[in-house]
């Protein structure tokens, strides 16, 4: 495969979301809408998830993706959206994996 096409397929969150939906997969999108402190990914960063838990993109560089995927798959049952917040205190940040102590708000929505 052409290297550029391959990169586009694995890197382009929205193109991947569209292609999954075309294949009849269920898809949710997670978007960083606000960050405080040293959050690992800037606002606007996105993650697309399908119903089997495949994902492309990132909202935290690996720290909270697990929790986001779980919420996303639950949302896919009935559709809709949800605002998630991670890293309220340094201790909790450690728990969910935001070891940097940053704080992020992530909007999760299904695409129907």
């Amino acid at each position, binding site marked *: 495969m052409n290297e550029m096409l391959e990169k586009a397929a694995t890197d382009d969150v*929205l*193109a991947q*979301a*569209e292609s999954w*939906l075309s294949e009849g997969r269920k898809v949710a*999108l997670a*978007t960083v*809408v*606000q960050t405080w402190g040293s959050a690992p990914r*800037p*606002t*606007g960063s*996105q993650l697309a998830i399908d119903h089997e838990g495949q994902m492309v993109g990132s909202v935290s560089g690996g720290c909270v993706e697990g929790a986001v995927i779980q919420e996303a798959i639950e949302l896919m049952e009935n559709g*809709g*959206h949800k*605002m998630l917040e991670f890293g309220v205190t340094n201790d909790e940040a450690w728990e969910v994996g935001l070891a940097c102590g940053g704080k992020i708000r992530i*909007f999760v*929505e*299904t*695409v*129907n």
Partner: protein
Amino acid sequence: MDFKLLKELNAARIDKRQVVVATHEETGESTLLYPFEAAGSSPLIDAAKEALRRDKPTEFEGDDGVWFLNIHNPPLRMMIVGAVHIAQKLAPMAAASGYDVTVIDPRRSFGSAFRFPGIHLDDRWPDEALAELAPDRRSAIVTLTHDAKLDDPALEAALSSDVFYIGALGSTRTNAKRHQRLTGKGFTDDQIGRINGPVGLNIGAQSPAEIAISIMAEVTAILRKGNTDDI
């Protein structure tokens, strides 16, 4: 978000349009905004425009609640016409500032890889090269040749596009002459007024590198603020 909207968004991105996804944080409703193509203005449109200019997604608090504005800007590009000494300094500076840079010069001894390591070079005539590069609203065109045969076709192509920045090297006198030639070609004063010339901010630049800094500063101001009024 619905699938139809996602498809429209991806199509807009492929077409290199500047598009904003506005999502109501309470209702989850999403809509696409094309602030630079919209005729009217509203606080939401203005906020979307500002976010695109700053290259930064943002939250907008409207009468009807909070919207998240996610931006999709096509990549920044700079086409430099004239592989001259200033171009040797400007090209890497623009690349470091996040631009995809192309240096256009049909004179091969100027536009050589030896003089421009790692920079994309195009040895066609500027009008031909620009027709294919299709500069858009996220592109800047800078002419540096001092030679009307090369600069003018590039400026004509630039004026016929919606690039955010056009700059032309040359003294005030050279600029006045150029103005006359372009008027002769049928361009209006308003159109010709889009050309920044003498190019660059007036920072007393002397060396090629300093002139490149003044150009890069002017390009940045116009990209981020839309003008250089308060500089």
